[in-house]
């Protein structure tokens, strides 16, 4: 048979999704695929999509685990909506993910897994490979299990061991599809399994078998070329949002000279921050895995009183448990960063899915008048800068800060241009000098209203703080009505004055026009992409993405006033839009909301924006 020459298509970007049973090794090949693209100079963003169960039942929808990679010649801002290539290792993963494949997408699936039992368990009535239901796709039913086994024959492995490299067989096919050389994959096998030469050999054989199979069959008619992206010069790495958060804090600790203390309790999807910081004792990080969420924040408050750069990390339900203690940090005016990697709620809700529904809780979820700074990270790599800024603001303004991220950006990853610590802003905590005769716990800087941080052990500064209202200046317990009014006002003004130090809110696109799209936090990628595409089409649309929520940037009102329409997009029922209505009631707002545990997809946003633009 004469070999048909493949058509090589050059693409601006491609989205590939790997799905299979949890345990099929989808995260591994997803990461390897993404690392290879990165080395070849592509921009990229990834998202692991895994079930709440560690190993869901075999061959069922509940057990499906996935990993999506978006690589680009153009700048990539999110892990992408719909995939161009879907690798589905069994019928259940195909059924669960077909809705995320573009019409015409190439679908590679393991033909050998489509037995009667697996088809039934996946919820299909008949074999989807045979009933014509997949005619809109370029479906490649590859006998992966049997060909992989055949490829490994020379190693005499038992079935179970041989089956472990099915994922690598599939990866070999994908490498062919992207016209990539095998080197990167082979290097990885040698590094990762250096102590198990048999596994290295098995993976190389499986990879080669897959690659050769893809080359031999005629089904892969299109292969891709995604040229390197035009990225800013520099040293790069791949980073997930949770790791970036942890590293941002380490950088802030080094830059401020204050030792890092994290008190935390494991909770999905925030646990990686606790795990990551636990690794860095060589940088002096003190990490305390507490007995519960409350002990996590309370130990951090104790550490803050004692002079540490104090942190606690959690997700929604944990934030609820920490509410009372956040009030303690507010009234004692101590620095503390509370990271909330938001997930679907209420209650236990959707632990592994993403949402932005804790905004109101972050702003107001405490007893009493209890203002604090709230900032939100916009992407995995931005988590580094957001964490750094949260720590800086908290120490320099002697106030707790809530840093909102979410499961989507916390666990997703993207390229990160590595900064130098010396290029990051200085952090200058207001530490009281020993034996200062004028020291009083609640004396304030007249301009910023910030009190001094007097560290236990320092001579001449012994003092007491606590949860009872204190007399301004001297710091004695005070139930005086006028003093309580004064302290309430001062605590609020102190937080509002932070706006004096914030950068101006930026706008993508023209500073005035028909429609201003407003978003905040982890939805940046999808919203930015949608708006950018419409700008290219010539629409009078702009985008303001907010990172500073409390206080808001000072030019917010000016920006909002320059557009005929404003639409606020968020993954909740409309919390930020309510907040804007409260602060700037003179404007009319439209809103676009989704509460499905899923990120926005670009197409639904563009559709909504186009619809609003038409009505103007």
């Amino acid at each position, binding site marked *: 048979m004469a070999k048909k020459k493949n058509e090589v298509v050059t693409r601006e970007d491609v989205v590939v999704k790997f799905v299979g049973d949890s345990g099929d090794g989808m995260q591994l090949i997803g990461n390897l695929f993404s690392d290879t693209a990165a080395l070849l100079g592509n921009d990229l963003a990834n998202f692991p999509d895994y079930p709440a169960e560690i190993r869901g039942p075999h061959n069922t929808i509940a057990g499906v685990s996935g990993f999506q990679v978006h690589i680009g010649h153009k700048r990539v801002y999110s892990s992408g909506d719909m995939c161009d290539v879907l690798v589905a290792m069994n019928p259940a993963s195909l059924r669960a993910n077909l809705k995320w494949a573009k019409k015409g997408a190439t679908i590679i699936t393991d033909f050998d897994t489509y037995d009667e039992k697996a088809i039934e368990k996946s919820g299909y009535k008949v074999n989807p490979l045979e009933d014509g239901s997949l005619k809109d796709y370029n479906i490649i039913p590859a006998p992966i299990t049997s060909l992989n086994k055949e490829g490994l024959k020379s190693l005499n492995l038992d079935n179970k061991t041989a089956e472990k490299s099915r994922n690598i067989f599939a990866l070999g096919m994908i490498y062919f599809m992207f016209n990539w050389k095998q080197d990167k994959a082979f290097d990885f096998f040698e590094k990762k399994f250096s102590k198990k030469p048999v596994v290295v050999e098995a993976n190389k054989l499986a990879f080669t078998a897959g690659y050769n199979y893809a080359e031999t069959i005629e089904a892969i008619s299109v292969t891709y070329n995604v040229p390197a992206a035009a990225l800013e010069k520099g040293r790069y790495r791949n980073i997930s949002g949770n790791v970036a958060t942890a590293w941002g804090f380490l950088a802030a600790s080094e830059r401020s000279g204050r030792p890092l203390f994290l008190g935390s309790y494991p909770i999905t999807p925030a646990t990686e921050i606790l795990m990551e910081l636990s690794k860095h004792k060589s940088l002096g990080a003190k990490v305390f895995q507490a007995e519960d969420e409350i002990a996590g924040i309370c*130990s951090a408050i104790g*550490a803050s*009183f004692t002079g540490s750069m104090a942190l606690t990390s959690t997700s929604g339900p944990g934030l609820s448990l920490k509410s009372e203690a956040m009030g303690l940090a507010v009234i004692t005016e101590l620095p503390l960063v509370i990271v909330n990697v938001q997930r679907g709620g209420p209650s236990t809700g959707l632990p592994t899915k993403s949402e932005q529904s804790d905004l109101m809780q972050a702003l107001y979820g405490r007893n009493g008048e209890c203002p604090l700074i709230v900032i939100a990270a916009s992407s995995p790599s931005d988590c580094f800068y957001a964490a750094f800024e949260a720590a800086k603001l908290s120490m320099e303004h002697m106030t707790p800060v809530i840093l909102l991220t979410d499961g989507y950006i916390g666990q997703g990853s993207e390229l990160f241009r590595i900064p130098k610590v010396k290029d990051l802003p200085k952090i200058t905590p207001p530490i009281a000098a020993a034996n200062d005769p004028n020291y009083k716990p609640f004396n304030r800087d007249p301009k910023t209203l910030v009190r001094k941080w007097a560290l236990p*052990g320092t001579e001449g500064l012994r003092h*007491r703080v606590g949860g009872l209202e204190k007399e301004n200046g001297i710091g004695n317990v005070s139930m005086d009505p006028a003093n309580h009014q004064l302290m309430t006002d001062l605590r609020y003004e102190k937080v509002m004055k932070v706006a004096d130090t914030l950068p101006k809110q930026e706008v993508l696109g023209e500073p005035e026009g028909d429609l201003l799209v407003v978003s905040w936090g982890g939805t940046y990628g999808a919203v930015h992409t949608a708006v950018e595409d419409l700008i290219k089409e010539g629409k009078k649309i702009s985008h303001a993405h907010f990172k500073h929520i409390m206080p808001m940037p000072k030019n917010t009102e000016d920006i909002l006033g320059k557009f005929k329409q404003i639409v606020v997009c968020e993954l909740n029922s409309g919390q930020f839009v309510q907040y804007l209505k409260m602060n700037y009631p003179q404007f009319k707002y439209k809103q676009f909301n989704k509460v499905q545990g899923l990120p926005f997809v670009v197409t639904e946003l563009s559709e909504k924006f186009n619809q609003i633009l038409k009505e103007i």
Partner: protein
Amino acid sequence: MEDNFTVERSRVPLTKEDFVSDQMVKWCPGCGAHAILASVANVFPKIGYKKENFCVVSGIGCSSRFPYYVNTYGFHGIHGRANAIATGVKISNPHLSVWIATGDGDSMAIGGNHFIHIIRRNVDVNILLFNNQIYGLTKGQYSPTSPIGSITKTSPQGTIEHPFNPGELVLGAQGTFFARAVDTNVKIMTEVMFEAARHDGTSVIEILQNCVIYNDGCHTPITSKEFRDENQIHLKNGEPMIFGKNNEKGIKLGPNGLEVVTLGENGVDENDLLVHDQYSQDPGIHLMLAKMTAPYFPVAMGVIRSAMYSTYDDLVEEQIKFAKANSKIKNVDDLLNSGDTWEI
């Protein structure tokens, strides 16, 4: 022990006056807390640490006003969380001598979780547990240490809950130090506080405290002049366990546990009595001693257990020291550039 793990010592001798705060003490007249404050004022100057290196942490309750009344660094926390806050204080700065003032509501009820975990970890702090068997600050509801049947504002027919014995809880949580004292005996309080300060690890001192307003006389069967000789035994390390008005009674380990015996009766003499070993690693006898209750047994006072174990805060410092010596990552730039990176 490394030098940098220890607390800096005062260069000048300190006195009580060094720890007197300028705040008006607002406990009720006759409250047992006054005597506890006096004992602390006796002990702090004797410990020898620099006065700036003391930190007193509390939760909520009558006991928890304590930090305002001693001139040290102080933190008045929220209900039940003193032990968690103090854990952060000690880990953050192991050079501090950390004291926690808490009560039977604060540490046995709302903060029970933090209480058992600080003990399990053996964080080097000293816990003064004011046990008056009642909620005083909220005006008289029963607490987790109120005896069964207690009539209070929330138990008009008597409580139907089994009370905690704090000593059992401490030893159950693998506590390394437990002592008991009565608020009327400043001498024993001072003595056990000093021993607590010397102990490396979590030291718990249960102070049987009277509440003149809501639970007056709650400890009278143990503490009154009339009964105290019969219903208390003051344990001293290395000495046989003898008590009674005329030192005529003793504690013996029998086949079914502890027994009260009378010296000279049935051929019993001092050699038959248990000799107190507060440093024993095995908590078995300590638990039996902590559980003794009147009127069948005398209640044990003094240091019941003081066993040596590594402390959490020391191990934290050791791990950091080891990591600093052995890791290739010396600063954040090293970290950012570690693993897979590439130039574009």
